[in-house]
């Protein structure tokens, strides 16, 4: 095949060889110089070899998970010099978690925001927070009218009400649908989680979420050593690497072990309620049965597991008769339907 040799090759003189050689070396040199910033990377910040080879959460057996947890503990030690205990806590069957938030009570103190950050090892620099509290003018539920950055010497302001927004743990979540690598999914107990070691950081889920509930680690998160929460779990509050998504997990490392979410525990006015909606005796089940409950952006079809409600005008245990006898209550207006019922008696 090579009978048609080109004459060009034979014509290479020493001079042109040197010139070409210099050009090649200069080109390669420029290429290497351009890549120099990569030299400053610590491979451990990117998970090292073990992190690179680690399987997807759902594909790991007990042995794989144990190795992953030990790697995570070592990584926390390396990054923060903290001895952490990492666990993988599984959901309990027959449990579906639901959150309910009483808008009549919330005073907008933002204690939940900061308790969440402390519990879940969010980045302090740059600041990442899962809960956003809106200060709403009375007379509207349009969240575009809310003030995200209110700063008052004391709360509540009597002309406003307060609306905290966090992940709604949707039953029909747009965020998990769009993930190209299944790095985020909904657990059987209704909590949508992220495998921080699987996420490729495309941020499509962040664009898809109608509640702006997802956060991205634009750089390696920083947490002061003394503020690191050492009780960590794989799917929730372990310190995150750079370049991955994170979100509220209903504090699953607490709630799956029978405790309450950090945001609820810190709430000074009892505006936050949490529990298993499949248990009819649970407080959240009762709230859903008896209160004036609504979900945010019902029209986008996400079926949130996060409900807002207002207190009734009368005590919850009051019967229809006792309500009518109560002073200061508007009179009961008999409807046509009611009259019919009476007539049929």
């Amino acid at each position, binding site marked *: 095949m090579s009978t048609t040799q080109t004459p060009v090759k034979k014509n290479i003189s020493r001079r042109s060889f040197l010139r070409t050689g210099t050009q090649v070396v200069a080109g390669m040199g420029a290429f290497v110089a351009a890549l120099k910033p990569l030299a400053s990377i610590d491979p451990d910040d990117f998970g090292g070899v073990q992190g690179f080879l680690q399987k997807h959460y759902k594909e790991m057996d007990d042995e794989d998970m144990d190795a992953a947890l030990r790697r995570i503990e070592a990584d926390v030690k390396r990054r923060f010099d903290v001895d952490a205990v990492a666990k993988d806590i599984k959901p309990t069957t027959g449990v579906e978690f639901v959150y309910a938030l009483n808008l009549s009570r919330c005073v907008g103190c933002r204690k939940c925001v900061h308790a969440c950050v402390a519990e879940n090892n969010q980045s302090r620099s740059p600041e990442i927070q899962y809960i956003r509290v809106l200060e709403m003018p009375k007379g509207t539920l349009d969240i575009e009218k809310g003030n995200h950055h209110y700063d008052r010497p004391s709360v509540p302001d009597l002309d406003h009400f307060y609306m905290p927004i966090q992940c709604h743990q949707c039953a029909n979540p747009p965020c998990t649908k769009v993930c*190209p690598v299944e790095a985020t999914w909904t657990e059987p107990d209704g909590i949508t989680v992220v495998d921080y070691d699987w996420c490729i950081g495309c941020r499509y889920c962040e*664009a898809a979420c109608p509640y702006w509930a997802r956060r991205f*680690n634009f750089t390696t998160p920083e947490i002061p050593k003394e503020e690191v929460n050492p009780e960590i779990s794989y799917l929730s509050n372990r310190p995150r690497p750079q370049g991955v998504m994170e979100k509220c997990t209903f504090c699953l490392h607490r709630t799956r072990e029978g405790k309450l979410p950090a945001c609820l525990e810190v709430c000074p006015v009892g505006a936050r309620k949490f529990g298993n909606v499949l248990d009819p005796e649970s407080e959240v089940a009762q709230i859903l049965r008896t209160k004036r409950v609504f979900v945010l952006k019902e029209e986008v079809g996400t079926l949130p597991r996060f409900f807002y409600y207002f207190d009734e005008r009368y005590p919850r245990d009051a019967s229809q008769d006792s309500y009518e006898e109560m002073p200061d209550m508007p009179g009961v207006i008999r409807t046509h339907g009611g009259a019919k019922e009476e007539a049929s008696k």
Partner: protein
Amino acid sequence: MKEYFRFLWRCFRLSFHGNWMYKTWMLILSVIALFGLNAWAKQIAGGLATTGMTDQVSWGLYIANFTFLVGMAAAAVMLVIPVYIYKNHELHDLVIFGELLAVSAVTMCLMFITADLGRPDRASHLLLRFNWPISVLTWDVIVLNGYLFLNLHICGYLIWCAYNERKPARIFYIPFVFIAIFWAISIHTVTAFLYSGLGGRPFWNSAVLAPRFLASAFAAGPSFLVLTLLLIGRFTAYEIPKKAIATLRSIITVALTINMFLLGCEVFTEFYTDSAHAASAKYLFLGLNGYSALVPWIWTAISLNTFALIVLYTPVRLRTGWMSTACVAMIIGIWIEKGMGLIVPGFIPTPIGEMVEYLPTQNETLVCLGIWAAGLLLYTILVRVTIPVLTGKLTRTRLYSTGDES
């Protein structure tokens, strides 16, 4: 096989030869590309914090350029359709330039997507757990890579045959040409579905988005081809038939008209209804609550597109100078319309009503310029080696003299 590698080696060597203008052009592009590579390396080390993106505006210039370039790639087939469906054989060889553009544009798309990833080191996860068919992004991965291979095959085969002075066997490329025509529509439709499928973003959640994408792409892509063909005609020995420019011009005219019409439809629906969902559109066109960074951009885009439309509908379109100015105006106009006019305002205000504006950083801009330079470099090389092959100056038996031309 050996002959094939020799062909590649000859092409590789050929890409370093040319007159001083060619060499200067290549040198400038290489330098910009290297600066871009350097900026990207900084981004890998420091994270996407080196960009202007935030949790509020979580996609920016990278995704905007990606979207624009998907359109450029798709539009390359607008040369294919007249040739293979309407049997306009005069343009036969020009198809290859369109397909080379598609190859370069898709390569740039893939580079922009990689630049946008927070963890490109985990790209292999796409192969290990591919969320298909649920995630539209996985569809995009399939159609873009498929389109790249289709076009590589078609023009690679045709050029290889020309190199071997053989007549290409129809069976080896005609079926792929027809697949590529439909595939081209699919790449831009799927890319539009990436955005229009998001119920939480009313600005994107519109059925007209995919048709608008296609219309604007079929205006911008052929405009770029017109410019390329004019440059090839001027700087190389290759003869560009007049008919090619005329065909492309009529395609551009129709596409740009439809694009402007669809934009009007969108604007009417948003503003006449005047619901809360129009917040992003208000921000884009008029400014909202004192925020108005994008207003000058969108009006510049509309002015440029209107100017191009006027040129296309008046006799000055026949003058090369006017036509090329209109093409440049249109490319810039549509680039703004897709980026500043579509991707960024979709994030402002956020779904829960916060107003945060987006301003790209210097590093991010350098990465973008670098990718553009790399793409143009690739396109220049592809065109550079294709022309002598097509004109019969470089074949298996004849080595193209590497002396200067023009």
